[in-house]
């Protein structure tokens, strides 16, 4: 298992960002099982060869592709909507996507929507073209977790997140210990939150976005449900006063001076109605406990192996990210 990175890119459009992500995922073993560039269709391969418009272009309205994990049956489908900022993102646990046409995406009997770009709530996956740097990480071994994150050029809170987060310490019997999250736009604190100890974004508050993180609950059991899930955040009660620990420590750990993070636990609260319970511990996200700006790096297990994104941190490759 090794984390592979593709970082510091400034895609011209959201379509180019998705194209870059597709190529990156293919480079570590994922395959495109079917696709359409609006002009042509393949039921067995990848017709999308660049991030622009025209034949083979990702930036054609309703262009789409299905990407399958190197092993297993999991498939992800992404389709461009009427703008390059809006994407329909869906997931098939095992049935697989079938059908499709040049400008019509495929379908799967078990497909679930992660981001209905341009649909209900008109969620987007990206902000204004050319305004952000794209950083991507993907694990080249099972369970193939990945993220793609956009950070404004010049700094600021993240404007794009697309991730598949495998659980650490998942619940035994959970057939699909993954959390999916695809969101973007200009309402930056509503994507990965901020460290101001209140706004955790949809990670913790599902009302802040029409596309909160989602996961299967009771997969394989009776009445399985795919729906929103919430990240849990650390609090302390010094002297009886509730205090969020997110961004609360002005300095690094007294023991070593290191900046601090805390595990992010995924849970389905009872107020979500169906199948409440503990999903697991994120393998990608850790809560930031120091007040650091997005794009900063932390030393967790090694030098600069985490990058700050909003209220959280993600794995990083040891370099200084461009901001």
């Amino acid at each position, binding site marked *: 298992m090794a984390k592979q990175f593709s970082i510091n890119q400034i895609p011209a459009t959201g379509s180019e960002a998705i194209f870059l992500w597709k190529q990156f995922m293919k480079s570590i073993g994922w395959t495109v099982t079917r696709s359409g560039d609006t002009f042509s269709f393949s039921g067995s391969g990848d017709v999308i060869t660049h991030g622009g418009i025209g034949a083979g272009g990702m930036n054609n309205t309703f262009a789409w592709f299905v990407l399958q994990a190197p092993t297993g049956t999991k498939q992800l489908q992404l389709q461009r909507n009427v703008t390059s900022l809006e994407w329909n993102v869906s997931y098939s646990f095992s049935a697989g996507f079938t059908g499709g046409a040049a400008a019509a995406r495929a379908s799967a009997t078990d497909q679930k929507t992660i981001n209905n770009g341009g649909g209900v709530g008109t969620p987007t996956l990206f902000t204004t073209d050319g305004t952000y740097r794209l950083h991507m990480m993907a694990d080249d071994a099972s369970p193939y977790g990945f993220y793609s994150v956009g950070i404004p050029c010049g700094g600021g809170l993240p404007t794009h997140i697309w991730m598949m987060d495998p659980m650490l310490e998942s*619940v*035994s*019997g*959970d*057939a699909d210990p993954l959390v999916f999250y695809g969101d973007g736009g200009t309402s930056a604190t509503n994507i990965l939150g901020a460290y101001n100890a209140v706004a*955790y974004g949809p990670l*913790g*508050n*599902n*009302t*802040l976005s029409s596309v909160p993180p989602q996961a299967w*609950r*009771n*997969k394989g*059991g009776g009445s399985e449900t795919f729906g929103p899930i*919430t*990240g*849990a*955040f*650390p*609090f*302390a*009660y*010094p*002297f*009886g*006063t*509730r*205090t*969020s*620990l997110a961004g*609360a*420590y*002005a*300095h*690094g*750990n*007294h*023991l*070593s*001076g*290191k900046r*601090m993070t*805390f*595990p992010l*636990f995924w*849970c*389905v*609260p*009872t*107020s*979500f109605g169906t*199948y*409440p*319970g*503990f999903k697991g511990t994120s393998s990608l996200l850790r809560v930031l*406990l120091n007040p650091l700006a997005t794009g900063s790096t932390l030393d967790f297990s090694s030098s600069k192996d985490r990058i700050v994104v909003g209220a959280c941190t993600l794995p990083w490759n040891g370099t200084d990210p461009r901001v």
Partner: protein
Amino acid sequence: MSLVFTANTTPATGAVAIFSLKALLKSVGWTVPRSSDGLTYNSSGDQITSSGSGAGGMNNASAWFVIVPPGGTAQYCFQLGATTSWRIFTTRFSTLTAGTPSATQTPAPVSVTDRIYLAGGGTDASPTFAGSTFAADGTYRFHAAADNASPYGFYSVAYAIGGGLPSHALFVDPLTDTDAGDTDPFVFYSSNGPPGSSLLGDLDGNPSGSFFNMIGAGAQALMNNPFGILGPAYVSPIAIHGIPGGTQTTLHGQLGPNPVNGKDDLLPCYYATDPTDSRPGIKGRSTLIRFPMSGRTTGDTQSVSGAGAKDWIVLGGSVFPWNGSVPLV
């Protein structure tokens, strides 16, 4: 690592409880290098042979013993004031071989600054005792567990006969997921207050004023940085909140058994200092304590490793490892 239990007892006095804890610790390899029954000082072994009064008894005023886990550098000292009132302290890197120990006086650490009081205080010559290490004699059930391998964590806990929130809790909690610079990855705690939610919390959905409010009240750890600045800091377990539907809520005791497997889910317990403390930071992850996500009452069990395993016991707002039996309530 395997926990050994002394469970489901109803000690007549606090002296009986601590005597049984001493016996449990000795059974997993701890030793008593010096002690006193309040009448006779023994500089080379365990003078306390019974839980009662008189010669060899634990239940004599000022009786004390030093007890040491195999390997390591920490030492612990217990001294009786009254059966409900104790003086308990630990050293982390020094032996308790200095001072002028006697039949009624505990020894001092070789390094005078290396002493952390878990209960009571004062001086060796003029000790003070915690008011409520135990509830009234004969009113509680008592359980204890000790690891028979390094790093030798242990706990003892009591709650009222018939049920109720804990009335006594004492533990030495070895940590994992600690900072690389941590040379003493342990948290120590002795409850020294009246029975209730302040000891180990409860599952009332609002952890303020409970176990999560230990700052200045209980759990301690060394936050000694690599530059040798020693001294105990108060640490608190970290509570876990979600904001479902826009409403911030604690998740402790709020989720119920997991729908995937029907088992009770437990959240890990991490300790941290107050962010405003002069020694800020995360101390580490508990190996003894977890937090239940199902609402249960003290003395109930939770089955995590398998259906009916009863491998955790609910104690206030927390759960501790358990031996699979049905706890006496």
